[in-house]
C-alpha cells in the first residue's frame, strides 16, 4: 500500500466495540503521506467510534495504532501535536465570537496563518466579532473548518465535515483536502457524500464486521451473539452511535 518504510499512521488489527457489541475488528490500514481515506459503512457501522479512537478521545479499542512507526500510547503526545480532529460537535463556544474561539485553538496547538486570514479563507470575513449564536449552522461549521486553515497538523481526522455546508463550501473543502494531501498530509474522513478526489481510498467498515466473510474466521466465538445484531444492521436500521 505504502512505499515509505514507516507510514505516518498505521492501524494493526484494530477493533472497536460499543455497548458490548463488536462493531468491527481486524482492521489493518496503512496511511502514508498524501493519503486520503474515506471511511464508509452504514449507520452504526462504527465510523465515529473509529475516528474517536484515532483522535485519542476513546482508548476503548483492541489492536494497535502506530504513529510514524511508534506505537500509541507512547507516541501520543507527538501524535496529539500532529493531529486535528473535527467531530460531530463543532467545539465552538456560541457565546464567543469566531475570532475568540479560534484564539483558544491557536494557543493550544499553534498556527501557520493569522486568525483573520483563516476566517477569510472560509468566507467569514467581516464576521470576526459577531457572536457565534448569531451565525447560521453552516457558518458555525465554517468557524470549525477555519481550524483546518489555521493548524499545522499533518493528520486530519474529519467526522462528517460536509454537514450543513453549501455546494461552494463543499468544493472548497475538497480542494483544501486535496491541498493537504499534496503537502504530504493524511486525511481520514467519514461522509455519505461521493467525493471526487483522485487520490481517495474508500474503506468500508462493513467488510470488517464480525460475521462478514473477511473476519468470520477471526471471530468465530462471537458469531452467535453478533450474528443477530449484524442482521439487524443489514436491514438498514439506524443504530445509535456517536
Amino acid at each position: 500500500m505504502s512505499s515509505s518504510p514507516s507510514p505516518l499512521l498505521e492501524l494493526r488489527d484494530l477493533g472497536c466495540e460499543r455497548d458490548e457489541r463488536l462493531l468491527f475488528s481486524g482492521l489493518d490500514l496503512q496511511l502514508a503521506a498524501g493519503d486520503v481515506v474515506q471511511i464508509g459503512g452504514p449507520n452504526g457501522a462504527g465510523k465515529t467510534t473509529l475516528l474517536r479512537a484515532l483522535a485519542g478521545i476513546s482508548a476503548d479499542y483492541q489492536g494497535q495504532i502506530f504513529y510514524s512507526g511508534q506505537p500509541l500510547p507512547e507516541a501520543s503526545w507527538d501524535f496529539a501535536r500532529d493531529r486535528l480532529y473535527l467531530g460531530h460537535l463543532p467545539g465552538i463556544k456560541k457565546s464567543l465570537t469566531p475570532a475568540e474561539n479560534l484564539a483558544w485553538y491557536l494557543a493550544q496547538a499553534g498556527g501557520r496563518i493569522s486568525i483573520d486570514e483563516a476566517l477569510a479563507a472560509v468566507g467569514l470575513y467581516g464576521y470576526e466579532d459577531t457572536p457565534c449564536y448569531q451565525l447560521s449552522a453552516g457558518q458555525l461549521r465554517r468557524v470549525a473548518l477555519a481550524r483546518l486553515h489555521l493548524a499545522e497538523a499533518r493528520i486530519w481526522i474529519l467526522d462528517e465535515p460536509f454537514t450543513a455546508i453549501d455546494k461552494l463550501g463543499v468544493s472548497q473543502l475538497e480542494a483544501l483536502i486535496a491541498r493537504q494531501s499534496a503537502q504530504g498530509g493524511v486525511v481520514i474522513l467519514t461522509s455519505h457524500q461521493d467525493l471526487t478526489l483522485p487520490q481517495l481510498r474508500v474503506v468500508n467498515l462493513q467488510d470488517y464486521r464480525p460475521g462478514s466473510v473477511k473476519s468470520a474466521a477471526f471471530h468465530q466465538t462471537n458469531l452467535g451473539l453478533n450474528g443477530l445484531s449484524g442482521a439487524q444492521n443489514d436491514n438498514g436500521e439506524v443504530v445509535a452511535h456517536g
Partner: protein
Amino acid sequence: MASQPSSLLGGFLASLRRDLLVAARHKAELTNPLVFFLIAVTLIPLGVSPEKSVLVLLAPGIVWVMALLATLLSLDGLFRSDFEDGSLEQMLISPQSLYFTVMAKILVHWLVSGFPVTLMAPLLGLMLHLPAEGFLPLLVSLALGTASMSLIGAVGAALTVSLRKGGLLLSLIVMPLYIPVLIFGASAVQTAIQGGAIGMQLAVLGAFLALAIVLAPIAALGALKISSNG
C-alpha cells in the same frame, strides 16, 4: 508561520481568558450563586428570630452553610456546556496539558462563584450581628474554603457531566467531601468570636486547599476522560 505552538503558560492563559469571556457573556448564570446566597441568608432572621442573641450564635454557621450551598448550586454547569458543544473533546485531545486546562476552568469557577460569595459574606455577617472580631476570620476561611470546594466539586461535576440529570448524584458525591471544609471553616469563625486562636482551623483549611490543588484537577481530568468515552 504566524505563531509557534505555544507554551504551557500560554495555553493556560488562553483557557483562562476564554472561560472568563464565556462567564462574562452569561451574566444571569454569573449572578445565580450570589443571589441565592443573599436571599437564603436574608431569610434566616425572618424564619428563625431577629433577636441579636440568637443570630450571633447562628451567624458563622449560616453564612458558611449558605456559601457551601451556593457553590454546590453552580457546580453542575462547570463542564456541561463544554461537553455539549464539543469543546471538551477538543480539550482532551489538545497537546496542551489537560491539568492546566482543567485548572483554568476551576479557577474561573471560583472567580465567579466562591470569590464574590466571600466578598459579600461580611455584609451578610453585619446583617446577622456577627461580632467585629469574626469578620476577618470569616473572609479568610471562606476564601480558603470556597476555593477547596470549587476544586473538590470539579471532580463531581466531571464524573456526572455525561449524565442528563446528574444534579442529585453530583450533590451526593460532593457533599461528604464538603463536610470537613464546613466544620473547620465555621469553627474558625466561631472560635474567633469567642476570642480563641484560629491558627489550627486555618492551617487545616489551607492544607485541604493545597491537597485539592494538587489532586482534584488530576481526579477531574481522569473523570472527564471516562465521561467522554461513552
